């Protein structure tokens, strides 16, 4: 806080170096040269930044105009790409990405996967815009079709010998769900329904709305417990109210946590017990940090919901210090607990998770037996 006592220190008496520099005659340009310079700047951005412009347009709120804009920017990007003008920015991005994801254990470079995923996503968007079915089997089953399949399975999967449990989640749950399902069915004698879908999570309810799916499942079937595991695909930007929110920013975290709250509210309304399985430690450091952040939010939200329990996996399929490990020594054996991608969990890992899950479901089983 300046005071009026010392005039030499008065901010009005001082000027910054940049301001001094601005007074230099060399810095004064005429309108013609400034306009030419500015237009050149925009032109260069347009031809070398075609991919970024496409990325920007593809994140705009959905409407006929934005769809048309996305198609135009995509055509433009492809044209620039053919000329190789995309390469300088792309190679810089690649180097920065590998710097950020500096692997701990000689992890293979993820960049090729990243580029492939982007290209696939762009192709999917393009085909959808043209009204054609994307070739990828990932999208072969639509949301409605998938829901129908799940409902049919739930109707067929009737057992009165034990509690009824619903497993939901993304690809992580898809990989360990069958193991958990088998293990729990055998040990608790109940029936387990698995509703899992790849490339989903809480970040993009516009792609797949898990809260709606869980509400749908709980409205048609009476479950004794809901076990959830998701978050692998959630470290991404998303749009909310027409505004794109960047992953990890305060605004993003606020919305994401609200979705977590909404999901757990729905579970607690429809089932006596909910269990959230946290993300396991990941091989890539940057990704591991992101997942552990999601775990922190899920743990906190679980604490705020009376029906929820949180199961952390650091001590279940992590090494002695809770860090990532592909193999673990289990009962005189050395088992591979993670898949080669350093993200998903193997069958052995799934069994370890089922073991850890069982004590949390014991109470559910006890209540079921008492009811019977």
């Amino acid at each position, binding site marked *: 806080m300046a005071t009026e006592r010392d005039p030499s220190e008065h901010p009005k008496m001082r000027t910054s170096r940049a301001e001094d520099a601005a007074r230099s005659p060399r810095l004064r340009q005429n309108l013609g040269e400034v306009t030419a310079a500015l237009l050149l700047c925009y032109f260069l951005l347009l031809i070398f930044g075609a991919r970024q412009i496409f990325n920007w347009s593809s994140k705009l709120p959905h409407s006929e105009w934005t769809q048309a804009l996305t198609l135009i920017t995509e055509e433009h990007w492809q044209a620039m790409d053919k000329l190789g003008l995309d390469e300088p920015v*792309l190679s810089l991005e690649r180097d920065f990405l590998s710097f950020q994801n500096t692997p701990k254990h000689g992890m293979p470079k993820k960049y090729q996967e990243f580029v492939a995923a982007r290209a696939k996503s762009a192709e999917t968007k393009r085909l959808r815009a043209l009204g054609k079915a994307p070739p990828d089997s990932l999208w072969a089953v639509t949301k409605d079709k998938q829901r129908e399949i799940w409902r049919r399975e739930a109707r067929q999967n009737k057992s009165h010998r034990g509690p009824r449990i619903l497993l939901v989640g993304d690809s992580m749950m898809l990989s360990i769900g069958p193991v958990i399902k088998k293990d729990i069915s055998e040990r608790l004698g109940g029936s387990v329904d698995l509703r899992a879908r790849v490339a989903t999570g809480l970040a993009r309810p516009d792609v797949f709305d898990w809260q709606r799916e869980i509400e749908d499942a709980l409205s048609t079937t009476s479950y004794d417990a809901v076990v959830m595991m998701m978050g692998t695909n959630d470290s991404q930007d998303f749009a909310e109210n027409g505004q794109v929110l960047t992953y990890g*920013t305060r605004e993003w975290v606020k919305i994401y946590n609200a979705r977590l709250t909404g999901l757990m509210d729905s579970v607690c309304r429809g089932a006596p017990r909910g269990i959230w399985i946290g993300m396991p430690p990941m091989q890539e450091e940057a990704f591991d940090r992101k997942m552990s952040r999601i775990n922190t939010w899920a743990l906190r939200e679980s604490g705020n919901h009376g029906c929820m329990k949180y199961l952390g996996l650091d001590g279940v399929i992590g090494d002695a210090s809770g860090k990532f490990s592909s193999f673990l020594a289990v009962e005189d054996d050395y088992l591979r607990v993670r898949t080669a991608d350093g993200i998903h969990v193997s069958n052995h890992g799934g069994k370890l998770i089922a073991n850890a899950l069982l004590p949390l479901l014991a109470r559910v089983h006890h209540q079921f037996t008492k009811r019977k």
Partner: protein
Amino acid sequence: MLFPTVEFAVFFLCIFLCSWALYGIPVLRKLVLLAASYYFYAYWEWRYAALLLEVSIADFVLGIAIDRAASKQVKRAWLAIGIIANLAVLCYFKYWGFFLSQISASLSALGYKDAIRVVDVILPVGISFFTFQGISYLVDIYRGQMRATKSLLDFLLYPAFFPHLVAGPIVRAADILPQFAKPANPMDIKASYAFLLLGMGVFKKVFIAHYLAVELVNPVFEAPSSYGSLDLVLAAYGYAVQIYCDFSAYSDMAIGLSALLGIRFKPNFDQPYRAASLSEFWRRWHISLSQWLRDYLYISLGGNRRGRLLTYRNLLLTMVLGGLWHGAAWNFVIWGGLHGLGLAVERLGKDSLKLPEFGLLGRMVRTFVVFNFVCLTWIFFNAETLDLALEYLTALSNFSEAPRALTPLSLSLLVLGIGFHFIPKSLLPWLVDRLLRIPLIFQSGALAAWILAISALGPGALAPFIYFRF
């Protein structure tokens, strides 16, 4: 519409071309700028554009009333109406919800639960800036430092001018109205200076502020008790760099954009973390706000003219109100209070102890102490709630937890952000001078390459500037 985005780039190119095409017809040029500014503002929330218009018209009319009033008493009465009107708007939108929630909490404690309904008032973007600008305009006229403008168009453009509308700098009417009044000079555009500021601003916001926030600051501030003391200290330093890079980037870009449109703003930051005293920090940090607080609050309270005790009180009060200006929360009150207390203690030491300066070493020690004090106060500023701020402070003594929040990238950015502040005074002008010998067309090519490089390294989308919340 954020500055470093595609939509803003398109918007700005249109405004640049249209406004300069009309430079020979100043009224039309200003109409274009005004329409563009209101479009820019309405892009967030169109309903509040009407609020901005109403406040601007009220200030314009009151300014004329103060200027034309025959006696000092009448002038004072009009000024009082003007200040109350501006503050009423500010208080309703910014503090009404907070005020009601405090009363509701007190009544709940007394057993009257849900006695009053707390309304959730949406804060119009930039309200703190345009109401403060309105007040400064009226006070300047009252003090005889300027005459009221007779041009409604010029005056409407003053708070609404889009480069500074939503997050400052808090521009004085005396600086900007004369620039609007005279025709723009197409032979005197400071484009190189603007390109330099735009380049710096994009880098600070998109790269440094973003990655520090996402990689280091946000995770630690969300759950401070799960981190050790080293992580917490580094996250506080990280936030100091993040908020500097975020806010000064906005100011840099605002100054650069307005320079391209032929309007000059004063700088808002001057390497604040190299300050060796708190009063020096406030002469370098958010200069337009600290000058505003000094000229319209501290001096109005009596400044340092009424003895030592009242000077300390005035410093404390000014900074508490300055803290409250940032938002209706106890965090900001404590943040401002700590700064006020710090300034009062510093003044007390200066007045009573007359300590020697101890040369360069003494300055280095003082800079270190001031920086750490400022970082300590940032904890209150950034924490979501007061409880989280206190949790953060408690966790600072958690030495058992191993550091895990810092990444090579965030460490590099931290060093870079603090390093910016200690560039020798002579180096930057020399560098700028060399850079500017390059023809403008190559400079624009370099700016395009710079923006492309940063967009490759930056996130897919941008978070709003921190000061949009205020």
